[in-house]
C-alpha cells in the first residue's frame, strides 16, 4: 500500500503541465507531478511515485537504491503492475486543463 516506485521522466505533457510520462521498468504511464515543489522536471529526471503521483524528485543513485529495495522485498512486480494499472491518462479522463 505504501509502495514508492522509482520512475524516470520520459517527457512532460505539453498540454497538461501537471502530467509527465514516466518509464518504470519499461512500462510507460502518465504520472501527476502536482505535488512536486520544483516544477522544472525534465526528461531523464528520476521521481518517486506513489498512487499515481510523484512524491519527490530523487537522484539516479537513490532511484537505483529504491529499485533494489523493491526487488529485495519481492515488490518489484507489484510496483510495475501498479504503474501498468494507472488508467487516468486514458481517453476522456485527463482532457481539459489540469486541476
Amino acid at each position: 500500500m505504501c509502495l514508492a516506485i522509482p520512475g524516470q521522466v520520459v517527457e512532460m505533457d505539453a498540454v497538461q503541465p501537471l502530467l509527465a510520462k514516466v518509464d518504470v521498468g519499461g512500462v510507460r504511464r502518465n504520472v501527476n507531478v502536482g505535488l512536486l515543489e520544483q516544477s522544472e522536471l525534465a526528461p531523464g529526471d528520476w521521481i518517486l511515485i506513489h498512487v499515481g503521483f510523484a512524491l519527490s524528485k530523487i537522484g539516479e543513485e537513490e532511484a537505483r537504491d529504491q529499485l533494489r529495495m523493491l526487488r529485495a522485498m519481492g515488490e518489484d512486480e507489484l510496483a510495475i503492475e501498479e504503474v501498468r494499472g494507472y488508467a487516468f491518462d486514458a481517453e476522456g479522463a485527463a482532457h481539459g486543463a489540469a486541476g
Partner: protein
Amino acid sequence: MKYVDEFRDPDLIRNVSRELAQVVDPERDYRIMEVCGGHTHAIYRHGLRDVLPDNIELVHGPGCPVCVLPTGRVDDGLSIARHPDTILCCFGDMMRVPGTQGTPLELKATGADIRMVYSPLDALALAQQHPEKHVCFFAIGFETTAPSTALTLLRAQAQGIRNFSIFCNHVTIVPAMRAILDSPDMRIDGFVGPGHVSTITGCRPYEFIAADYGKPVVVAGFEPLDILEAILWIVQQLHAGEAKVENQYRRIVPWEGNRAALGALARVFALRPYFEWRGLGFISQSALALRPEFMPWDAEVQFEIPGVRVTDPKAAQCGEVLKGVLKPPQCKLFGKECNPERPVGALMVSSEGACAAHYRYASRQLVEV
C-alpha cells in the same frame, strides 16, 4: 532465503550488526517500535530479528493503513457501494479487508459495483467515463497518500465533476504515536520513524517525542542497512542520555518535508476532532475530513452513512497486536481461523500488517551475516 550479499553495502550491514552487538548493554533491554508497516514488512522479510542482539525487542507499530481502519468504517464504505448506480473504488489492499458482512471483494461478487484502482485519479477518470453513475473513492492512508487524494479532489472541483466523491479515512501518524506514548501498558525506548510518510511531513513533527517524552526518533529507509543503522543510532542516543530526532533516510526525506504536498493537505482537509483507530480506540485530531467547501464531494455528506461502531470478534486480538502489547502468534486465531487466505483481522491482509508479515516470513533468516 535472503542472503546479505544481495543488499546495498553487505559489509556495512555486517559491521553495523557487529557494532550493535558490542554497544548494547547486556544488563538492560531495549524496546524499539518501528512505526511504519513498510518497516515491519522489511524486518520480517529479511529476518532482521536474527541479526539483532537478544535484548533488543522490535515492537510493531500502527503504521499500516488498512490495519488501523476500524471495522465500522469498512462497513460504512461498503454501505455506499449498496446504493444503485454507484461505483465504489478501493485500493487493492482494501479489497480483502473484512467488514461485518464480508470484504469488498465478497460484496462485489454479489453484484455491487466495487472496483480496485491504483490511484485516486483512476476513480476520477471513471467518474468522467460514467457520467450516469456516481463514483466514490474509498480513501485510506497516512500522509504519504493523503496529498494524492487532495490533488484529485482539487481537480474534480476545477473541472466541475459532480458525480464523484471521497469517503475520507485518511489518518495522521503523529497522534497515534502520542497515543502509544501516553498508553500506560506500553514502554517504548525509541522509535524507528516512518520513511515515506516523512517525505511529506518532514522530521519536525516528531520533535515533541524527543522534547516532551525524552525518546529518540530516527527516520529510516527500508533496506536492511537503513533499519539496522536506525536501531544503532537509537541505542547510541539512549546510552548518551540523549533524545533527538535524526534522519537516517536523508537521501529521500527532506527535513522540512514536501511543502507543496503539505499545502495541498491544508487546503483540502481539516482535522477531525477525533477518529477511531482499530486497537487504539478514539484518538483526538488524528484523522482528516474534507473542509466544508468540499461538501459536494464528501461522501459522508452525500450518502447516509450508518456510522455504527463495531467491535471486533472477541477472540481476534488485532488491537493488542497493533499496540505492540501482543506478538502476532500470541493471538489465538493466528494461523488457524485467521490466515492470509481467509483473514479475520486486517493485520492479516496487507503485506505491511504484522500478522501477515509474521505468517509469511517468521522462519526467514538473513543468513551468512
